[in-house]
């Protein structure tokens, strides 16, 4: 079985809606765009869609993904990725844009499993570029960095040093800097806000944007959107 994977954004005012809200918006969007999503069986059937790594409310993103389960017929008849992407894009609210669609097989890893790292763009205020560079070099010179995180009511102390892949200044401002940082998501997502707070409690993050979600294969960084736009149809269905 295959599903449609859509990359979309969450930018601007809409960043303040929660994860459940996003799910509801997708349900309505698919009906508006006439995408014949499959429904679950049972007492109260709901559309079968699944999301990747949750994005904290208030964070923006240019790289959100959703998997939409569809009957095989959908991929056969005049499947036009661009038209589908446009239709979905029109049906989404302001701030949520459908950027790309791809087809994935449900036997592949779930979105959450497939993603190894996220690239974040973070706007920080109250620090000079020089000041930040110093903090950065101190960070990369140490071998371990432990962070306290709450999980299921318990406080865990974890070493997250190996999850920090990169961290660079992308832009300098009069009152701060914008950085780009790639952070590993395994075993658990490391949020840039938690990391920055741990490094220096004075840093104030003004805005956080997820730029990419990535699958790491050797040295390659791959977007989890294996596009296979014109799938060959099984002969017996065509007949």
């Amino acid at each position, binding site marked *: 079985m295959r599903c449609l994977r859509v990359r979309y954004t969450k930018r601007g005012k809409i960043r303040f809606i929660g994860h459940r809200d996003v799910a509801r918006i997708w*349900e309505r*969007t698919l009906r508006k765009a006439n995408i014949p999503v499959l429904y679950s069986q049972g007492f*109260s059937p709901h559309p079968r869609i699944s999301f990747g790594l949750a994005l904290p409310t*208030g964070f923006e993103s240019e790289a959100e993904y959703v998997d939409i389960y569809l009957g095989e017929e959908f991929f056969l008849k005049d499947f036009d990725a661009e038209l589908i992407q446009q239709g979905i894009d029109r049906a989404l609210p302001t701030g949520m844009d459908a950027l790309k669609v791809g087809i994935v097989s449900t036997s592949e890893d779930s979105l959450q499993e497939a993603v190894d790292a996220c690239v974040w763009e973070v706007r920080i205020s109250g620090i000079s570029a020089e000041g930040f560079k110093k903090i950065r070099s101190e960070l990369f010179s140490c071998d371990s960095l432990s962070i306290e995180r709450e999980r299921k009511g318990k406080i865990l102390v974890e070493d997250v040093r190996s999850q920090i892949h990169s961290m660079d200044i992308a832009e300098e401002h009069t009152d701060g800097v914008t950085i780009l940082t790639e952070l590993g998501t395994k075993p658990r997502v490391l949020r840039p806000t938690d990391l920055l707070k741990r490094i220096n409690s004075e840093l104030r993050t003004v805005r956080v944007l997820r730029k990419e979600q990535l699958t790491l294969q050797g040295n390659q960084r791959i977007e989890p959107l294996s596009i296979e736009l014109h799938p060959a149809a099984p002969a017996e269905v065509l007949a």
Partner: protein
Amino acid sequence: MSSLWDELEQFLDDVEKPARYIGGEDGAIDPEHSPEKASWLLIYPDTYEIGLPNQGLQILYEILNERDDSVAERSYAPWVDMSREMRKRKIPLFSVDTHRAAGEFDILAFNLSAELVYTNLLECLDLSDVPLYSKDRNAEHPIVIAGGHCTYNPEPFADFIDIAVLGDGEEVVGEISEIFSHWKSKSGKELDRSGLLRELAGLAGVYVPSLYETTFSKGRLVSILPKVEKNITNVIEKRTISDLEAWPYPKNQLVPLTEVVHDRLNVEIFRGCTRGCRFCQAGMITRPVRERPREQIVSMVEKGLKRTGYDEVSLTSLSSADFSGIENVISEVMTQDSCSPVSVSLPSLRVDAFTVDTASQMQQARRTGLTFAPEAGTWRLRQVINKLISDDDLFAAVESAYSQGWRRVKLYFLIGLPTETDEDTLGIVDLAEKTLEIGRKHHKSPSVTVSVGGFVPKPYTPFQWFGQNTEQELLRKIYLLRDAAKKIRGLKLKWHDSRATVVEGILSRGDRRLAPVLEKVWQKGGIFQEWSEYFDIDLWKNAMEEEDLLIEDFSYRHRDEDEVLPWDHLSAGLHKDFLWQDWRDALNNQGLEDCRWTPCYDCGACTGYGTEHVVASAVPPAGGSQGTGAASQQGNEITVSISEIETVKNLQASGVNE
């Protein structure tokens, strides 16, 4: 005018449910402001989740934005954490559309639909930097308007508003905009606020409280009369739009980005109700019945579902199963072309088997629970309140529900109704028990949830003279029910806080003496009083005491026929003598038939305004014998005389002096 968004987004991360404040709903209108237009801020003084779906507000929002002389945005009461932050940062109440300050609008229009939000009206005014009292405002300040069902007795909050609008708002908001935009075009000195208010008072349905004077004597209201001014009417009549077809609003229902109540497409199928339930203010004040043509309903549903992506539509009205040929409407709606299943719901089911069959057809997919509202535990009491449902009607309905797959049934009742005895109260548990017995024929463990509300007498109903049950009396009845319900497996009892009922009662039939009470409760932090975590009866009791006012005077005593009622200068068309007669009939256990299908008895709602019912069929709906005359013939043995009411009254009175 500037947007406050830049300031807001800096701390929205720190408040609960920030999505309440961002706007951006599908259907939101990009407002075209211009200095000549009257700019309205439509405020629902409760949380976004409760306020956003309000159809009345959405209708006016569209109408005002379609006009050339007006523009409208929306606002909702910020939750307590938000208002705390706003005050700290000196950010005023703002619109969710363009996030501009409330004080920059010409008109602040509040939708008031429940008494317990009155203190939120004060909170919103204060957050807007607008003086609380009408008398303290000048030409610089916005005009404060109230609409919604509560304006049928606006006296408790009359000092805080400049204008109350009675009845349907569709036409009158245009008339107000016209006068206002003209007034606005005048130059500085001519901008005389009281002149504007006098002009607005000339519009039908518009009440300007500051132009009327109330006189009290020995703790009783003795008159409400226009202050010696020309052209001010003695009685303000409500507005009624006679043809719903001409107003197919909302055309673009707002689809929120976050979860709200009634999160589905809502299409109003008729307005008004003539069932004549005597406790129901909505039914009385919205007469006559005006049905929307079937084709228009179907097309509104079709377009609405396509545009919004909802898969559920509610066909709204006060009693939707009574719509002429409702079965046809439902099947037309359900068979329309769509890629996912559509479920249809009627907000209020009539209690009979036919209605359940219809419901079963509507909700093919979702079998959650069915709610019926018999309102009273015995047939006798149901005749008193004119809810003419026999026990057999109810049993047939639940039989039908259980047999068609529902396992949960919800029953809704009122306690504290006129002439109610303990036998009537306990009749509630009795009905629930029998309902469960029927359920057991079909399921292993059926369940019944009984919800009990405390009755609050409302203006413009035959029960407007009735002395409300005291807090203690209601509590006694709740305990009576609780003890009886305990023994029954599968029965769950829920009840409304009787202390909240007390406050609702004070405000429902209160008068202008309550203004300082509202102010004191608000000052002490008594906002969001309809939310149990914030409701505080002591704030109200203390404020009443400080003002030397007795709850007894406002709520618990029966009122006399010739007593001046605080809303006597306002009119919903209903003749006072019709209501009084209906009150006497109630005390004689006499039901009154639905005038849609039987001859008119001249209540005044049509006859007074030259309107009439707009119904597609003059034949009672299939399966709906109630109130058509057939039912009223049954059992009528027990009569309760007024003297028993007096006994009950004493009981209540002894409860007051704790």
